[in-house]
């Protein structure tokens, strides 16, 4: 940011803007610069031409499939989280004792963090955990359940940590919609389903798109639970794990940066698709007004 002022300038420089300077400088130095450095580094492979890392990524059998492995986990997890959170949050849109209670209860899994959830799941969902004990009481139960050290373990852990997040986010968007609009519709005879379809859903579209993106980022960058709960050698070898191995086990920072860049790129494609879908919906204010 240019902070030079001169008496000849047309408008005097607003010194209030300087208040944003430390944060801006910090973000440029520690976010933009490393990002660009990583981009540059990804084109400077240890050996080979400038595209060698990307060539390696898309030809090596243990690298490029990680994109699908990650998407196969992250997309279903995000769809489940947002898909279940939306109707429940819609039910609870009216302020009540339950709303406060449920939101408080649901904050707990968010703060547990993925590591603790993974640790707990290993015992609870394990072949000798309480869940297995309860299921053994059921008549149609056969054979031990396998919910850890595979795909399902990682998916469940993504739902445990991601669902409360999606729920709280959607609830905060829904309660931000002026209930007067729905009341007006119901005066005109709209059922709750119709209110949802014609009033809440269009107004929620930007919030839902945002929520989907944020929930997806969380699921997409899955790392600890994929290692601890999954099968990191095979079905849950996610892309962040590949990047980590390249950087800290093979010390190939150039390749690691390339993987990180590909990871960011795939993420951006998903975000762009979601925002593109969101563009098909209504755009406008979410509060009723006379203007």
């Amino acid at each position, binding site marked *: 940011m240019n902070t030079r002022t001169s008496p000849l300038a047309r408008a005097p420089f607003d010194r209030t803007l300087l*208040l944003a300077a*430390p944060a801006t400088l910090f973000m440029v130095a520690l976010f933009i610069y*490393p990002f660009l450095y990583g981009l540059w580094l990804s084109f400077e492979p240890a050996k080979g031409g400038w595209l060698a890392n990307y060539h390696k990524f898309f030809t090596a059998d243990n690298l490029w499939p990680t994109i699908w492995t990650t998407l196969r986990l992250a997309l279903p997890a995000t769809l489940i989280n947002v898909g279940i959170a939306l109707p429940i949050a819609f039910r609870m849109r009216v302020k009540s004792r339950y709303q406060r209670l449920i939101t408080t209860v649901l*904050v707990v899994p968010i703060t547990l963090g993925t590591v603790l959830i993974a*640790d707990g799941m290993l015992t609870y969902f394990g072949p000798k955990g309480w*869940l297995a004990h309860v299921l053994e009481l059921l008549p149609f139960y056969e054979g031990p359940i396998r919910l850890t050290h595979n795909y399902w373990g990682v998916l469940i852990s993504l739902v445990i940590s991601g669902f409360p997040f999606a729920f*709280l986010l959607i609830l905060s968007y829904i309660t931000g919609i002026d209930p007067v609009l729905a009341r007006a519709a119901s005066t005109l005879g709209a059922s709750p389903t119709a209110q949802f379809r014609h009033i809440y859903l269009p107004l929620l579209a930007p919030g839902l798109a945002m929520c989907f993106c944020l929930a997806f980022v969380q699921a997409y960058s899955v790392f600890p639970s994929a290692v*601890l709960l999954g099968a990191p050698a095979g079905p849950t070898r996610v892309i962040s794990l590949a990047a980590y191995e390249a950087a800290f086990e093979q010390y190939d920072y150039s390749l690691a940066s390339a993987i990180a860049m590909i990871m960011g790129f795939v*993420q951006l494609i998903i975000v762009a698709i979601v925002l593109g879908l969101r563009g098909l919906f209504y755009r406008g204010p979410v509060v009723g007004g006379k203007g």
Partner: protein
Amino acid sequence: MSGAKSWLDRAWSGLLWGTMAVFVVNVAMLIATVATNSLAHRWLGTWLPDGWTLNWYLQAWKDYQLSDILWVTMEVVLAVVLLSLLIGVPAAYALARRDFPGKRALMLLFLLPLMVPPMTYGIPLATVLYKAQLAGTIWGVILANLIPAAPFVILVMTPFIEQIDPNLESAARVFGAGTARMFTSILVPLLAPGILAASLLVLVRTIALFELTFLTAGPDSQTLVVALYYAVFAAGVRAPQSIDAMAMIYMVVTLVWLLIALRFVNPTQLVSRVKEHPRAVA
């Protein structure tokens, strides 16, 4: 007609509550499993363990040098909270009060770190920090944790500042207060609830933030969550009960702060920005 409708309605309602109940019960049992195991003398595939003991906590405390780890965690979290407030609140003020060319770009710059997976920028960042010889030190961990924390403070504080009447600031200016004086005498007291909320949210998030700390921490600068990861990852060497004891300590630390935070913050604010207060009806 209406009978069928109310039947459907009730079934739908029951389905939603049922889903919610399954989720909450399973998470509660999951936590209870960790708690039971950490207190169990020996627990092998039965409903309840043979006996109860507190020894695993003592052992975890000794084996994992938890006092050091807790101390480092506290240092990191405090530094992150203070520094993110120090650079975040003034920036939020500038964004809330002024319109300037490039404001949207600046907002995007502050939003991006929350929209990009931490691993994506964490790996290049770790590389840069290693070059600067900051990685592996507590300063590297603090800097890395500030990247999502500072934008978060900005996003939380901007609506708070927007709803403060600018006339108060003009009045202070008329009486000759400089920018610093105006901040300390007018804005900080008025913003106290917002600042408190933001700092508690940053605190809870920083304790739980795994990836960035994991990528930048060295042996002496691990926070609790990273130490817990290594303990679970290297399981087999130590008794699982002592890992669970450590997990319980981690959970209690988070929960204490969370309960404090919930006294001041609406839970929905933990994940999203604070909603703008409804405008007074004219």
